[in-house]
């Protein structure tokens, strides 16, 4: 009886907090068929927002993947002073509010900040433009690839890498032929997480983008702006599209997650 009681409590909680709200949005979006959904997502603004989102996310994922692999190898395979500190600092972005991320980047890369002013004089606008949005996205998604790769790299050990090295393989060859194949699933897992986080980032991007419609508006900003402007069908359609991406991510990560 007590067991059933707990089951009912747990499922009811999840149902009202998670399943019902998400289900309702999907139902509202597709309530009048696929037509309005497609129409809302093919408007010029929505398409543009989708392009901006993809551009920003791809740059951010590329940067964090390179950084993630490199840092994971450093942390697992090398010894250097300050290693523990670096290890701890990598998780820092998880504890920072997205809005604070945005503010921090504005204070350094904004037009009136020293660094931002200098870049501006070279013709590079960071804040209210794509580079700033990429920086913000890189910030919030920074630990994901590192944290996915580190445990697998540890488990893998370095015997094969040493063997390749003693046989005369260059470090690049060793990396491409031995290390990379060994971590590929963990890397894929980290990249998927990173991509999902990048596509879905709202707060940090809201601050640094200036939320310029049809210029720096991402899909998440589009959802908010449409909703505030009483265009519920477009907001719901874009939200459902993002939710679908989230569900696909979820299934992919379930499939890729290192077992055990």
């Amino acid at each position, binding site marked *: 009886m007590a067991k059933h009681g*707990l089951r009912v409590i747990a499922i009811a909680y999840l149902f009202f907090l998670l399943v*019902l709200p998400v289900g309702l949005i999907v139902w509202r979006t597709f309530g009048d068929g696929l037509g309005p959904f497609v129409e809302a997502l093919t408007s010029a603004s929505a398409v543009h927002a989708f392009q901006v989102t993809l551009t920003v996310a791809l740059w951010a994922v590329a940067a964090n993947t390179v950084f993630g692999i490199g840092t994971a190898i450093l942390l697992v395979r090398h*010894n250097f002073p300050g290693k523990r500190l670096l290890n701890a600092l990598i998780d820092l972005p998880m504890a920072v509010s997205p809005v604070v991320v945005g503010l921090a980047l504005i204070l350094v890369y904004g037009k009136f900040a020293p660094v931002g002013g200098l870049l501006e004089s070279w013709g590079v606008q960071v804040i209210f433009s794509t580079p700033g949005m990429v920086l913000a996205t890189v910030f919030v998604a920074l630990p994901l690839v590192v944290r996915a790769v580190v445990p697998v790299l540890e488990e893998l050990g370095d015997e094969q890498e040493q063997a390749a090295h003693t046989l005369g393989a260059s470090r690049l060859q060793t990396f491409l032929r031995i290390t990379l194949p060994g971590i590929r699933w963990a890397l894929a897992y980290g990249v998927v997480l990173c991509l999902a986080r990048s*596509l879905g980032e709202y707060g940090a991007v809201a601050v640094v983008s200036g939320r310029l419609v049809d210029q720096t508006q991402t899909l998440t900003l589009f959802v908010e702006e449409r*909703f505030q402007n009483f265009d519920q069908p477009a*907001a719901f359609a874009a939200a459902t599209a993002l939710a679908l991406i989230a569900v696909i991510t979820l299934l992919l990560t379930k499939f890729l997650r290192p077992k055990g």
Partner: protein
Amino acid sequence: MTTDVAVAAAPPPGSPGGGARPRSRWSVTGGTALGVGSAVLYLSLIVLIPLAVVAWRSLDQGPGYFWRAVTTPDAWAALTLTVGASFLVALINLVMGTIIAWVLVRDRFPGKAVVDTLIDLPFALPTIVAGLVLLALYGPESPLGLNLAYSRAGVVLALLFVTLPFVVRTVQPVLLELDKEMEQAAASLGASPFQTFRRIILPNLVPAMLSGTALAFTRSIAEFGSTVLISGNLPFKTQVAAVNIFSQIEGDNTTGAAAISTVLLVVALVALVSLDLLQRWGSRRG
């Protein structure tokens, strides 16, 4: 080709030149230094310097200004609401997260695998979508007739949504590893189910429960996107700290925004350091 190489290359155990020597040689070469340098540069340019500038900016007009910025009525109200709501949310997560983890590990019912997958949905779902989704069900057009929009209950609801996985996902693995023989021993010695839970199971779960709760708390303190729509940003009533910072940035008051940001950073760091101490204490006991 590669397999042949790998097999042929594996040195017999104990053979000279097999050990870790060559590698530890590499690790002091320029390669490592270059790698560490690049990683630190990347981290500094994107994370460390900007955060340091926030802290510096919050104090560059003196501690008096900092204090006034933090204690302006609307900022103070936002901060106390954020901390209070986060405590409440952490507490609810502590109880509900443990119950959900328990049900997922110890109970059997059809569809359990689906429920288990669903737990991670809040992490995958963009926060603005989470807010919109909750507003659809618990907003002015609620089909349940339950309107929590623009209320503090709505803020708590949004925070509960985004923090759901933390306690579940920290407690679940510990519960899976837990040795059932101890429980059986306790039961055979005449302990009631409650006594077994209280004396045997709970002590093993407490470190995981607390670390999940601390993570949920830090996340709640920092949360922005999910609360934007459902809270309606009413200063003194439903405006959380992150939203307050956002409106100060929009109003070009970056020093005030930096002051509140610094408070949030400090609260988050204190929570994380306590979590670390807690984990060490837990592993020493375990």
